[in-house]
């Protein structure tokens, strides 16, 4: 919490610490592209909803808010573990870091399970992309997001594997990149949940 550990001989003590982006710049370019795609999707939802308020409100009431809230908790908990994984690797504890990644992966897995049950219930009612505009958006947005969760889990699994085999010089940067991506998936859901499940 203090700067005394920066035992640089030439430090005058006045230079502010360098601002630093965690992770590879390439992943941030990609995150921006993804955020843009979701932004367009969200705005499209808003526009479509404004044109069919009743249809959207009726459809929304049929959604499983408990599942949505549970999934929010799972995602933010997963993110919390990922933050801890990064901190542990920085602290020179790759084993602990790998453990936290496993916990995050478990949260992601929980998200998938909840989603599968949620979809199963909906599909059993014969709801599909072609049912109406609300369900089109509900399925499209959540499925598009779900695939991001899956991709995020693949990334975390790869990172876990490389941590387990012993970290190299680029492992921290890779972990930071993967973490940034995982948090992005979280960030999107934080908008998606109130928008699709709650806001009437």
């Amino acid at each position, binding site marked *: *919490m203090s700067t005394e550990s920066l035992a640089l001989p030439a430090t005058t003590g006045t230079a502010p610490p360098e601002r630093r982006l*965690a992770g590879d710049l390439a992943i941030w370019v990609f995150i921006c592209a993804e955020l843009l795609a979701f932004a367009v999707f*969200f705005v499209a939802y*808003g526009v479509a909803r404004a044109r069919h308020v009743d249809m959207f409100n009726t459809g929304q009431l049929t959604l499983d808010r408990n599942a949505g*809230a549970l999934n929010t908790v799972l995602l933010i908990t997963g993110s919390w573990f990922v933050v801890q994984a990064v901190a542990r690797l920085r602290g020179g504890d790759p084993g602990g870091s790998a453990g936290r990644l496993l916990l995050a992966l478990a949260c992601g897995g929980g998200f998938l399970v909840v989603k599968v049950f949620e979809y199963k219930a909906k599909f059993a009612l014969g709801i599909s992309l072609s049912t109406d505009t609300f369900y089109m958006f509900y399925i499209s947005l959540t499925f598009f997001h779900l695939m991001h969760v899956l991709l995020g889990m693949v990334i975390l699994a790869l990172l876990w594997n490389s941590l387990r085999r012993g970290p190299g010089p680029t492992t921290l940067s890779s972990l930071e990149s993967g973490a940034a991506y995982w948090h992005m998936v979280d960030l999107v859901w934080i908008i998606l949940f109130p928008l699709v499940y*709650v806001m009437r």
Partner: protein
Amino acid sequence: MNAPALSPAPSPATPRAAHLVYAFLLAATGLTWFLGETGAAGPAVMAVLMGAALLKGLAVAGEFMELRHAPRLWQAVVAGWLFFVTGCLAAAYLA
């Protein structure tokens, strides 16, 4: 306060701020869920929901994604995205 990320010395502890953010995220999610369960609707509720989403997003971006310590341009990009999206959704709701 913002030195640990650069520090060459081991700092195994997760920043305390991250735990606080996590607690805040849980609380805000609870609020969102509660509003959904009571069936509350209307512009005021919408403002609370979007406001909560905005604050949650800013917290995740700032603390989890470590943008608080990142070049200001990147901070602005993600914060700008959050303001843009929640703003557009609020506008579309009121339209």
